[in-house]
């Protein structure tokens, strides 16, 4: 039997990780909800953000948490022409085209990053966040860097919530996600909204990247892992559901961490894929997706 303390420690670690996972996934689900495109390059944007954050810290000594906003702005700007040039032509086309195009973007981006910055692993080993806080009484340790990533992820989630539910653009986004045509009829500028959402999704990916690289070392090729992870979370939580990706993120974070009791860390990664397959069998629409939604593009 496992020590209760050990178990609670794992649960705490899982939750800390889950918050960040949710942030990684939410950009993907936003873009899908409005544009109906699964952006396989999402993971590469996470890595791009991570590198931008890393260089800001390494070269200019900027506090990594302060790099979040500039990274988001940068990625937002980068995303706009990409959307117009690469994503618009494939909207509404065959699934194969969308997946392959975004996958092509993903590997091209990773290759560019490797050419520019080499394939070395990067990590923000910033002194103030080394070490851990110990929760008195329960005796679980919360590493500062994971705690920081967790807190900032939730802050960004909160900001996203405010954006979506308290602003005009947020209403436009939700309307377009629900029904493009109806939104257009009531006066929403659909094209501009789509552009905004894509930029936002990419910016969030970048932000999650900055936080991610304070926890784990990353190199340009780590992108694929994270887009697959994001996809598992988004599928679990329901495509297009922001709340779903929050719940899904926590669940996956928990599953990954807790299962390390029984299996190694690498096998825990495989488990996530098997979990995905399991979800597909049982409830493809996910926890918060609408079951009536078309499951295929035909």
């Amino acid at each position, binding site marked *: 039997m496992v020590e209760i303390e050990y178990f609670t420690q794992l649960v705490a670690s899982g939750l800390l990780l889950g918050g960040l996972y949710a942030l990684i996934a939410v950009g993907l689900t936003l873009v899908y909800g409005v544009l109906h495109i699964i952006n396989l390059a999402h993971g590469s944007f996470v890595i791009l953000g991570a590198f931008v954050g890393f260089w800001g810290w390494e070269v200019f000594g900027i506090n990594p948490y302060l790099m979040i906003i500039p990274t988001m702005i940068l990625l937002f700007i980068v995303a706009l022409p990409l959307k117009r040039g690469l994503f618009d032509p494939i909207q509404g086309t065959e699934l194969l085209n969308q*997946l392959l195009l975004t996958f*092509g973007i993903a590997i091209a*981006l990773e290759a560019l990053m490797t050419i520019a910055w080499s394939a070395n692993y990067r990590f923000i080993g910033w002194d103030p966040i080394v070490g851990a806080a110990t929760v008195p009484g329960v005796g679980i340790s919360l590493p500062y860097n994971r705690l920081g990533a967790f807190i900032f992820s939730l802050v960004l989630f909160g900001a996203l919530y405010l954006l979506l539910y308290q602003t005009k653009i947020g209403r436009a986004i939700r309307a377009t996600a629900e029904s493009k045509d109806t939104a257009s009829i009531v006066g929403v500028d659909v094209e501009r909204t789509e552009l905004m959402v894509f930029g936002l999704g990419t910016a969030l990916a970048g932000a999650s990247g900055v936080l991610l690289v304070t926890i784990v070392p990353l190199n340009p090729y780590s992108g694929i892992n994270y887009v697959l992870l994001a996809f598992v979370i988004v599928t679990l939580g329901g495509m297009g559901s922001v709340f779903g990706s929050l719940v899904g993120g926590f669940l996956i974070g928990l599953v990954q961490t807790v299962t390390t009791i029984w299996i190694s860390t690498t096998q825990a990664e495989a488990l996530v894929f098997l979990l*995905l397959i399991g979800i597909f069998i049982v409830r493809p629409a996910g926890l918060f997706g609408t079951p009536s939604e078309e*499951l*295929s593009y035909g």
Partner: protein
Amino acid sequence: MGDSDTSVGRGLLQQDIAFLGVKLSHRQRLVLGGVSLAALVALPYLGLSTYYLALLTTMTLFICLAGGFNIIAGFTGQLSLGHAAFFGLGGYAAILMWKTGYTLYASLGAAFVIGILTAIPIGLVMLRLRGLYFAFGTLAVSEATLIIFSGLGAVGGSSGLNVTSSVGVGETGFYYLSLGILVLLAVTTYMLKHSIFGLRLRAIRDDEAKAEAQGVNTWLYKNVAFVLSAIFPALAGGVYALYFAHIDPTIFGANQNINMQLMAVLGGLGTLLGPIVGGALFYLTFQYTGILFPDAQLLVTGVALIMTILFIPKGIIGTLFKRSWPSQVNQAQTESENDSPTEQSHRGDS
């Protein structure tokens, strides 16, 4: 009525093709195919250096990968993003058999059998899903297999397995082996194009609900196509592993999968020559950028994918070749739909 029915039937399955303005009848294309095959078979005896022979062998194996993907994605419309799994599984099966002491043909036979035996359950589970979910499901299978094999000591873990004893067939032997698989692939694809089975697969690809409504047992056909499409990567994997005398879990990775998909799409999904052209073009480019600009290799793949999807989504063969119905069908069509104005405007399309 009977006459126009058979000519329509034949027409659906045997189209005329115009290539850059030159019209080729079905018979002419068959002859061309036969001549090409004869040339390929004779190649080793025409004094080709070992280097080029090896190049051709590897290229042929990659073409077989693209061909397998073509069957499930191009003909049946199911996007199997993890199809390289069968490539790897076939390879591991062959190497394990060989290392245990079995003969070459037994090892390749094992690759074949493993391909089928793994495709059946994977197909049964995955094909319940459609579109995007099927795509990610199969990708998950491939990635999960990678992770599992990396951790499995019995198959060499992340370093994989090596073959120490020589297989003994030489460069020429491997060339003929891979050519053999290619011929098998070509014949199968040809039969898919010219059979009712293949026609039904394409019906499923074009509109699954409609096909089902018209009485096609989509579940059965999809599963059979899936298994069929797994055979070629599995066999190719067996030859590949024994040829390079090595296999490791990276064969299950995203790179291998992406290469397969790019080759097939570049050449043209749903065509017979597509995988061949796409495979050849991709492989040669890949090799040369590998020699000249190793870092850029991956970039080239990515950009090639992007360019292909944006500009020639039908692939090279799909865009270059214009298909048309033979004149008999044109007549039969207009006879049976004589008052439909839309059909009148389609008459004479070629």
